[in-house]
């Protein structure tokens, strides 16, 4: 009986205990169920995204750069088909082995192999490595022959930048190269579209217009497994080519300019005096931008870098030179505008025996025997230094500086388009105090009057100055990329209305001018200066008389200049050496500015030959050939302008 009651009791206990266990189980089951509900229903989207992130991997495909053309639609920066070999790292079982095999098929140099290993260090295991960017056809076909032995190697047909006119436009167009970490940090567009092997602009238009030229990368989405192996392509968002750019450059004139500058260091700039279009911007010597596309060799780079004539320097806008006598028309204009002297003002130039004297300092004219009594027109035409010493002294450096800045000196012509462009120096008493912390001497005014001393200009600034004188004294907007907003007819009618506007009282004070606003007080002053430049080229005793065109339609007006590299001593003057006898580095720079055609001016130009000697001998003759070409191509250019206007 005891056993029986105990059994009953035991049974009861077990059942009760079971009940508690089952209750606990139901509770735990509830927890698991709610967890599953939470994961699969409430947070489904979150985990779906995570799952897609897991299984889908994106590969960016490189965009094609936009083309760059000249004004006449000649392609000056092209995309060329290239043969490449890529290595898909996820498919390579033994990297060292793969490189060794490739080395035997395509010629890889030791330093190239070193670079490949460096690149590999930085890549992800699923990346594709570019082994060679530019294979010859021979190498490429050989590669295809041995492809079955090369795990992961892929022959790829790609495009790369090609400059068909190689050396002729490097300073304008620039070149491309691999994007550096800095490039990626500095430009958002590069960062967004970065793909291994992406080329970005390093200098020139390629650099400043990179954002437009790059285009947008494509995206290929693949399903991948946990080790990153591609399983299938899911989608392909095609890459888009960058914008095509039309420049204002005339390829033929540019080529002629480079030809004229051959074997010399120098610059030629040509500009439309109304539209401000830069038609030519040549700098010499040049180099081949194509060498940079796939990484330049150390030997080639050293050759360019160590060239004494400094090919890397874009002399048109980053080379600084004293303007020399090319400043004289501007000095004359300033003196007339301020009414310091009139055109009849005369000075006697008596030769080296009786130089101009100021506080015991002596200032010589370039002409040994002197010019005799000079009026203003003659002084410009024959470039008499004594005359301009005196005019500058009377005028004062501050007024001269104000007018010089107004016509384009002392500031960047293309604003921030080229990072290397220089502002130059237009000195004034205030400038000297601020920069050199010294007071101004009158003697410095005197030499500023003939474009020597502190004053520093770029050839492009001189070209702009000439343009703004030749167009009758109106501010223009220089540009290098075709801009449909700039309309010749509109500019001309704006200028016409400015001409008849009454002169503001402030016209001779320092003040900010808008584009196409008149810069002068009295139109006659400008006319006088332009006429004097005509005399300089087209009349006997004019400094560029020998470079003139006799045919009416090519007639141009200009002004020579000689930029002293060092101070001329009395000893030099006595020796009076020929150019060939002076050491290259000590020879003067030759300058020439001009506009054409004279009767209806349309183009301005500047020529600079580094250490070329005198402007009339070295620089002016080049202008003769250039102007013929420019004017011959005028009709064609106007036709294009009309076509472009119609499209717009």
């Amino acid at each position, binding site marked *: 009986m005891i056993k029986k009651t105990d059994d009953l009791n035991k*049974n009861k*206990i077990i059942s009760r*205990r079971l009940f508690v266990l089952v209750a606990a189980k139901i509770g735990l089951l509830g927890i698991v169920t709610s*967890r599953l509900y939470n994961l699969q229903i409430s947070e*489904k989207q979150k*985990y779906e995204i995570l799952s897609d992130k*897991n*299984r889908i991997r994106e590969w960016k495909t490189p965009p094609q750069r936009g083309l760059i053309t000249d004004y006449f639609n000649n392609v000056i920066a092209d995309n060329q088909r290239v043969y490449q070999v890529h290595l898909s790292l996820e498919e390579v079982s033994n990297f060292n082995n793969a490189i060794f095999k490739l080395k035997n098929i395509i010629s890889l140099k030791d330093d190239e192999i070193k670079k490949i290993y460096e690149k590999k260090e930085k890549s992800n295991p699923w990346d594709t490595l570019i082994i060679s960017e530019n294979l010859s056809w021979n190498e490429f076909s050989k590669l295809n022959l041995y492809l079955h032995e090369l795990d992961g190697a892929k022959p790829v047909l790609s495009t790369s930048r090609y400059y068909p006119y190689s050396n002729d436009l490097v300073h304008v167009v620039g070149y491309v190269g691999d994007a550096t970490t800095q490039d990626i940090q500095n430009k958002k567009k590069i960062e967004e579209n970065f793909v291994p092997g992406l080329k970005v602009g390093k200098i020139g238009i390629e650099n400043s217009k990179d954002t437009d030229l790059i285009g947008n990368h494509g995206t290929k989405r693949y*399903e991948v497994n946990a080790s990153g192996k591609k399983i299938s392509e899911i989608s392909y968002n095609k890459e888009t080519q960058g914008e095509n750019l039309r420049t204002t450059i005339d390829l033929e004139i540019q080529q002629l300019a480079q030809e004229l500058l051959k074997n010399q260091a120098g610059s030629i700039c040509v500009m439309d005096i109304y539209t401000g279009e830069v038609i030519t911007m040549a700098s010499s010597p040049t180099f081949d931008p194509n060498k940079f596309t796939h990484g330049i060799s150390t030997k080639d780079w050293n050759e360019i870098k160590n060239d004494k004539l400094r090919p890397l320097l874009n002399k048109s806008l980053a080379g600084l030179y004293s303007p020399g006598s090319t400043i004289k028309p501007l000095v004359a204009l300033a003196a007339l505008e301020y009414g310091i002297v009139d055109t009849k003002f005369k000075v006697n130039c008596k030769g080296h025996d009786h130089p101009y004297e100021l506080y015991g300092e002596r200032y010589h004219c370039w002409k040994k025997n002197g010019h005799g009594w000079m009026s203003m027109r003659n002084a410009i035409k024959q470039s008499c230094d004594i005359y301009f010493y005196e005019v500058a002294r009377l005028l004062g450096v501050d007024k001269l500086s104000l007018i010089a800045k107004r016509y384009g000196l002392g500031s960047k012509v293309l604003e921030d388009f080229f990072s290397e462009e220089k502002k130059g120096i237009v000195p004034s008493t205030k400038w000297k105090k601020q920069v050199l912390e010294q007071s101004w001497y009158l003697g410095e005014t005197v030499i500023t009057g003939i474009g020597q001393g502190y004053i520093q200009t770029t050839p492009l600034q001189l070209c702009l100055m000439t343009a703004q004188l030749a167009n009758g004294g109106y501010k223009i907007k220089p540009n290098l990329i075709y801009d449909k907003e700039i309309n010749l007819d509109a500019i001309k009618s704006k200028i016409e209305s400015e001409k008849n506007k009454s002169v503001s009282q402030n016209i001779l004070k320092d003040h900010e001018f808008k584009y196409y606003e008149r810069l002068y007080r009295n139109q006659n002053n400008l006319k006088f200066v332009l006429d004097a430049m005509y005399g300089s080229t087209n009349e006997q005793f004019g400094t560029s008389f020998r470079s003139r065109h006799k045919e009416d339609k090519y007639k141009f007006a200009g002004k020579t200049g000689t930029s002293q590299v060092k101070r001329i001593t009395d000893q030099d003057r006595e020796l009076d050496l020929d150019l060939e006898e002076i050491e290259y580095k000590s020879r003067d720079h030759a300058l020439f500015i001009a506009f054409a055609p004279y009767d209806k001016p349309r183009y301005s130009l500047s020529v600079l030959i580094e250490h070329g000697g005198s402007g009339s001998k070295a620089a002016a003759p080049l202008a003769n050939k250039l102007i013929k070409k420019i004017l011959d191509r005028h009709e064609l250019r106007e036709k294009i302008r009309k076509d472009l206007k119609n499209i717009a």
Partner: protein
Amino acid sequence: MILSTSLNSTSYSFLDKLRAIDYFLIIIVALIGSISVFSIYSTESGNFSFYTKNHLTRFLVFFSMFLVLSFVRVSFWYRQAYIFYILGILLLLLVIFFGISASGSKRWISLFIMNLQPSELMKIAIIVCFARYYHRIQSSDIQSYKYLLQPIILLLIPCYLVITQPDLGTAILIAGSGLAIIWLAGLKLRYFIYSGLILLVSLPFVISILKPYQKSRILTFFNPDRDPLGAGYQIIQSKIAIGSGGLLGKGFLQGTQSYLEFLPEKHTDFIFTLFSEEFGFVGSMLLILLYTLLIYRIIRIGFSSRSFFAKLYCYGFASALFLYIFVNIAMVVGLLPIVGAPLPIMSYGGSSMLSIMLGLSIVMSCKIYSRDPIGN
């Protein structure tokens, strides 16, 4: 009188036996088995190859074994209970000397046709042993120190042997199953509370003797992002797979997480993850429902059994089964640390399948021979 005749009737006709079989339970087991075969098939991206073939063979063999062993008298299991336990311990000792090592732990002994994991058998042996132990003890004696100490020692020996393999998961499951029966037998609640407190206090010391990989698993459980590519990888990927399954799942053979090999151990511990990714919340609930029905049927058999041995065994086995299922699912959904516990029947693994089928056959034997009084 009717009672006494039935008490003494220890002979069963074959027809009686067939009639006594719980067919519903067999159907549930067969269903879960089929689901498991398809799931393993899916882990091989729909190829009928190594794992699927093996799993199917094992299921068929052990399922047949379950059906055959169901006809072994329950009194046999009662009599051999301690032998079974001792055999289990011996096998565990054998592992120490002749065991096969894999990924840092020594758990298996080679039986030529398959590698046996004795700790899996121990999971059943402990239940059988404890069911017998408590079968005869009177309820009034259970609280005495003698009867308290003996089962604790019986439990600690296999747990220690399994922990040192090292296999924390199985040790916890063995301990859990044993404790379930001690609880059912009626040991006072306060002893459980005391031992729980002692465990809590000693936890820091326990952690200090854990193997580094075990420690990191527990740490990453609390913060899986600590090491997303290392120890936390499994939890994160498993949660992604389950979560992205959504309500109805990605479809059979469409689970990208497992197909693309993001899921580790997908045919063993993480088989539920794969199933849940492909069949979603609805599928998971159905599978859990099948397991619940299985447990319910086992409890029902225990309920209608006359002997304490059968009752304790069935309830104990049902609790253990629940524990295995809960630990596994809670683990893959990120509720518990990854300790290594297979999902009964579903997971790939011969020893686990063998022990579950063995356990089920004892349950069925309890059903068929429910009128056996056992003992005195």
